[in-house]
């Protein structure tokens, strides 16, 4: 199970799309660290300069809308960002984030309660979000059971390996 994550909150608005998370011109990069240097560049060119490893992106509704580019969550993870908290996520981004192991938390209360710069502590296993600056605790929406089992299995790759092994028996 993932360890605790903690860092400062960087707060953004609604509909943060994949074009601003990682602009198209960088989509020919596959190295996570290289991609990470351009995370959120289209939205906040200062992001990678002002953030520190462990920091958390907090956003309103429909985070990650737009293209299916898996390099979007990879860039966020590659930048050292530990997680994204949003009121809701776009469908493909949600799936991609789980597949590549970027922790995501869905919580209206957390997004409303957190101010830019707050110190946040997260427990991916339980969905607990602690705002140390404000002394508040929020609970993220639970993952549907099937997804929980995928996460617990370590993601989609181990799941596929299990299926392959079964079919070869």
């Amino acid at each position: 199970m993932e360890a605790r994550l903690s860092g400062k909150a960087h707060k953004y608005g609604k509909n943060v799309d994949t074009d601003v998370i990682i602009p198209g011109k960088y989509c020919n990069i596959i190295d996570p660290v290289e991609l990470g240097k351009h995370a959120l560049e289209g939205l906040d060119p200062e992001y990678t300069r002002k953030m520190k490893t462990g920091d958390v992106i907090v956003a309103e509704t429909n985070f990650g809308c737009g293209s299916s580019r898996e390099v979007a969550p990879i860039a966020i993870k590659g930048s050292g960002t530990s997680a994204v908290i949003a009121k809701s996520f776009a469908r493909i981004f949600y799936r991609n984030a789980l597949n590549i192991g970027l922790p995501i938390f869905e919580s209206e209360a957390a997004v409303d309660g957190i101010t830019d710069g707050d110190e946040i502590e997260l427990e991916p296993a339980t969905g607990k979000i602690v705002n140390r600056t404000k002394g508040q605790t929020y609970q993220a929406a639970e993952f549907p059971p099937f997804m929980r089992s995928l996460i617990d299995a370590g993601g989609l790759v181990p799941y596929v390996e299990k299926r392959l092994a079964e079919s070869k028996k």
Partner: protein
Amino acid sequence: MGMTLTEKILARHAGLERVEPGQIINANVDLVLANELSAAVAIGVMRGIKGADRVFDRSRIALVEDHFVPAKDAQSAKLAKLMKDFAIEQEIVHFFDVGRGGIEHVVLPEEGLVAPGELIVGGDSHTCTYGAFGAFATGMGSTDIAAAFVLGEVWLKVPASIKLVYNGKLGPMVYAKDLMLRTVGELGIDGATYRAIEYHGTTVDELSITGRITMANMAIEAGAKNGIFHADAKTIAFVKERTNRDFAVDRADHDAVYERVVTIDAGSLEPQVACPHTPDNVHPISEVAADNVSVDQVFVGSCTNGYIEDLRIVAKILDGKKIASNVRVIVNPGSQKVWMQAAQEGVLTTLAAAGCVVNTPGCGACFGGHMGTLGDGERAISTTNRNYVGRMGSPKSEVFLASPATCAASALSGRITDPRVLELAGV
């Protein structure tokens, strides 16, 4: 209780009698698609899966080089080569390099790789385009695509469906693109998240296959998982011309359950424009044109509007005229076949004579990749599907989305222009 069109296709591919919205299913896929960007990541993931050395079926995978090709730089060439080498190694039947393909979503239907009732997943969000043919098609990220390459199946959550009903006859210079822009404007960019869109009504029955492609293509712009039309005689004729394989034509049940029904009066619709910086910031052309918005670039192309029908509309408007001196017009035919047909019909000559540059088929400027990237402070009107900040280049540029006719009219005047003005002037 009956099932929607999407539910029927999903149930059959999951080997189930019926499915309900919210249910998680394991479904067999008929085709898995990737381009050089999504494939590069997917191939890397597949290499890391123990026991996965072969794809599940080399004839059910389509790999199309389209985003940064012909390679824009050495890094892009590396990704293109990575996919090509994989195609050779795995003996992939449907591999399309430049000169034989074009934009993935234009190529697959052309090549008969899409048929009604099929289930298609692709490493590109506009995979939903194939809903135009009555198929269930959805975009996914590279890890999901890697899993599909290997297993030939995917896990899916059955989406609830939204029924869109369009009635009325489209006026002059009003097209499928205008209908769909209006729709995205009504629903909002997250209005159909986790949902299926099912298109109905007399207006869409009348649409050509290309018109339906334009509409299904932009289902994702409302956040939808898929957008789907019922296959009719037009669809079946199109598909049978291109493939001999059997397919099933499904219909939604009369008592199918929809989460919402939205009716759109198409008869009174005027041309629409999505203003910066979201595809749902949609306004009627009369409002936008009244602001006298000058443009630096007009782009005609993409998987939304890069088809022969689209190029013909533009050529007809530009025929014998010159584009305005303040504007450059970039045309990307959607595929090699579209390019060839446009050449044979004289469409390319008409466009070039008017002052347009005709690029090689591919995505090109659509996503700010290459061949028409916008600079700081530049403004474009484009037939593409997205206008997020920086979509076509600089984060300080602006993109307006419109139909090929509106783009052509704007090319002539150098500012965003109502194409119906041309109609009145007898153009």
